[in-house]
């Protein structure tokens, strides 16, 4: 067996024996000095992916509100942020659509205060009568 083969064998054994090596170590080994750039590149891909997801969410939400003929209202941040966060990483088309419906319903002025239109109408009549 040549020296090269021995070295290769030792290398493979070293890699396979350290099965618990964190992913960071693997990236460092694969990319060498360019590891940091590789990490940033991956981060960029995730960012782009999430941006695309957000864009799809906005387009679908807009379409739903347009079909309804209403101007969107402000959505509480406590509701808005988790919807955007979850919808942007959703891969399934059907579930993406549900996130958009959820946002469209939240942005629908008809759902503004949780009070049905009939009650508002009744309140107006009572106020006027008084």
């Amino acid at each position: 067996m040549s020296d090269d083969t021995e070295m290769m064998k030792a290398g493979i054994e070293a890699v396979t024996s350290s099965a618990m090596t964190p992913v960071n170590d693997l990236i460092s080994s694969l990319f060498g000095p360019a590891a940091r750039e590789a990490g940033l590149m991956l981060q960029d891909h995730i960012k782009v992916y999430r941006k695309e997801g957000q864009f799809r969410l906005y387009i679908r939400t807009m379409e739903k509100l347009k079909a309804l003929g209403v101007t969107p209202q402000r959505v509480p941040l406590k509701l808005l942020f988790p919807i955007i966060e979850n919808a942007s990483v959703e891969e399934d088309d059907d579930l993406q659509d549900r996130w958009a419906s959820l946002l469209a319903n939240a942005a629908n002025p008809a759902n503004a205060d949780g009070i049905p239109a009939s009650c508002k109408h009744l309140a107006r009549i009572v106020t006027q009568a008084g």
Partner: protein
Amino acid sequence: MQMVFPHLVNILRELSPRQAKYLDALYDYAQKRSDRKLDRTLESIGFSHLDFVRVFSEIGLARYPTSKHYSAAEWRREDVKADRAEREVALDIFHRHRIMVEVYDLGEERFTIQPRQPELDSEVHFTALGAQFVATCRPPRPQVAE
């Protein structure tokens, strides 16, 4: 009208595409039945075990589609076992979020049969939260004058 509140986000994020599809179909099934019985609300419609099997088959989720009770031989099939496991996990998740609840019939006559132990019939119903959740994950509809 659809009230949108933060907990609905938690429910939607925990559903798989197949579970969401199943839940949607169960809602439609309950809706149709409540429309036929004008005095009944969607939440008052009960699902039997067979209803769950049927809806699962009708929307194309079942590996072994059927609209009848499984025979003893069918119960041993691997695809039937897989369908059952998937339905049970889905129902556990629906129960966990209180989208659906199991209601037991504790009628007095159930306890008069001797010497057998009383058999409790149960049905599964949508909760108000469950009905609200499914409706809110559908496109908004124009408000009807009330």
